[in-house]
């Protein structure tokens, strides 16, 4: 019984030390803020999702066309808008993209 209690106490002590480790390692720090993408990075992330989606759709259409799932006529109808969408998305991610371009990139199809 005593061994079990000693082991239990050791386990608890180890847990406390490990949980407190970030503060033991850096008792005082000026950089205690969680780094993250922030508002601008978040916006960039959303736009990259739009870009990846547009590029993915183009890739998918190419594959569907090559495998005969999409006819030549349908391919010609669909590929134009998808290319424009992908181009808009890529332009919106450029550093000097205007707010108007960013809004345009987020618009569906």
């Amino acid at each position, binding site marked *: *019984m005593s*061994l*079990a*209690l000693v*082991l*239990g*106490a050791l*386990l*608890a002590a180890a*847990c406390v030390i*490990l*949980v*407190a*480790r*970030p*503060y033991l390692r*850096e008792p005082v*720090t000026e*950089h*205690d*803020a*969680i*780094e*993250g*993408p*922030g*508002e*601008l*990075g*978040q*916006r*960039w*992330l*959303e736009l*990259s*999702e*739009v870009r*990846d*989606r547009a590029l*993915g*759709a183009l890739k*998918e*259409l190419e*594959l*569907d066309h*090559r*495998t*005969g*799932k*999409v*006819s030549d*006529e*349908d391919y010609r109808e*669909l590929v134009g808008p998808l290319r424009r969408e992908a181009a808009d998305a890529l332009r919106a*991610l450029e550093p000097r993209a205007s707010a108007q371009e960013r809004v345009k990139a*987020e*618009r*569906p*199809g």
Partner: protein
Amino acid sequence: MPELGRAALVATLGLVLYALVAGAVAARTRRRRLAESAQTALLLTFVTTGVATLVLLLAFARNDYSFVYVWELTSDQLPIQYTLAALWGGQAGSLLFWLLLLTVYSAAAVLLNRRASRDLTVWVVPVLATVMLFFAFMLVVVSSPFATQVAPADGRGLNPSLQNPYMLVHPIFLYLGYVGLTIPFAFAIGSLLARRKDERWIVATRRATLVAWTALGVGQLIGSKWAYEEVGWGGFYAWDPVENAALMPWLAATAFLHSVMVQEKRGMLRLWNVLLVILAFSLSIFGTFLTRSGILSSVHSFTESPIGAWFLGFLAFVVLGSLLLVFARLPLLRTRARLESLVSREATFLYNNLLLVALTLTILWGVTYPIVHEMFLGESRIVGPGYYNFFFVIFGLPLLLLMGIGPLVAWRRASLRSLGLTFAWPAGVAAVTGLVLLALGAGSSIPGLIAYSFSAFVLASIGLEFVRGTRARRALSGGSWPSAFAALVSRNRRRYGGYIVHASIVVLAIGIAGASLYDSVGEGRLTRGSSLAVGDYRLTYRDLVERPGANATLVRAVLDVERGGEQLGVVEAGKNAYTVERQVSNEVGVRTDYLTGEDLFVIAEQVNPDGSVYLRVFVKPLVNLLWLAGFIFLLGSLITLWPDAREQRRLAVRYRGAEAHADS
């Protein structure tokens, strides 16, 4: 050492409480060291819960009956593998197992995402800690596996039906599935709490969701195999509430895995996906509540159960809390993308989702109706297989057909000329299959005939996808057919792995239809030397033998099997009498024809003192396709799960770019 087990669980409780409070404060105030500390606390729960589990396993291995839990579930005669597996054989042990798996999943989720998705993980930690807190609290306060007593000489033994090799793995898979659904739930809720509009939570949980879904699927199939061989009523799925408890979250997760693709490809269904994740997780908690609260026996045993009310309270908290959060974050979940056509890939996903959710809710109603009825009107009611079978056919057949239609339809919209190009072959194959089967006499079951025709359609459409894809790949980069095929699958793992999973569902459907709609049954009392004919088979009762087993006495009727004048050998069916447990189990005899997938299934219903036996015999065509489907399912899932370096690189660029544009 029960004290060490108790202390370890108390440590887990303390750690998750800290992870919850510190994690929530850190996320709100964006304090890095506090967040790291909360994450460490969450990771350490794996160690403390692991210690508690180890203590209990050691108690099982040593048959230490001073542990009440060990005494209740084992005996000196019980073989070691079942003694150790008794860990999850009772209430407290299965809660401990739930918690252990949750700590494993949580540790993996935190370790894999804390750098790549720091600001989301910060919000996920308190959500995971909340779920853990519930289970740790139950184990410390309500249902401890470490209760002790003065050790009796021997244990009470394990329920004989659990003494089966399938029971060694079935609960592990099932729990891996139930518990794994916590991860997408925690990330979805964390993403909402963090007010994020991006799809990071989906990317972060894709693999965990697939692992949980695969495990739940495989676990159910193993459970069916166990029921088929051990419970011995002649079937593999009885729409029992315990079985339904696992099926419902699996169906909801299946719907999610499809609809999430629509969000990834088209940016649609954001709200729907979050709701599906909440539904799947809530159903996994509901499933654990159903099996562990005693409510299935009666409302009275539920009120007497120590854990029932706690589970119900937690379930209500999860559902209401999640829905309130979703409501508060509705503007973030709005999407501008619209369905362009009702004939498009995304539309077929939507139809598939509606059918899956409808089937899930139908089963949920079937499970809850008897409980609600007894609770309010005081009378128990039974919802029988007829109810479930009806809706299974109504929703299942269109679902089966959609599996074939989906791959043939392009994203965004498909014209009639495109559909004509792609549908011709599969539709032709389905029509020919239907006609041939009709000519062969399969018209005795219309649902069966439809199921087989639809199955042919789906298999043809999947086969066509592989052939056309390989041809296109070969035209693009040359090489041999096998290398083009390998490159096709390797570059599009999710798509082609998914098709293999679809093929497994078709094989499963063929097996279910064959075994349920085209089976033959016969029964009768046989004396030595007499025969019984069922289907093409003739069984002749040769002898009754008795022999000792590891912890039971085995009685078997020995039957000679003959088909079309050819002797096929012997099949044995009978009963096991377990001495310690004082229970008798049915032990069925099965003769498998591996060429046709057919089983001859014999149940010795009665073994009479005069040496005669009363037999019930089934001939089950194609039933072995069910188990084959499990292997195909696993293969497809593994292909889908296998990491894709190209996609990893693309995602890394996306998230590094976001960090580079950080303004804080």
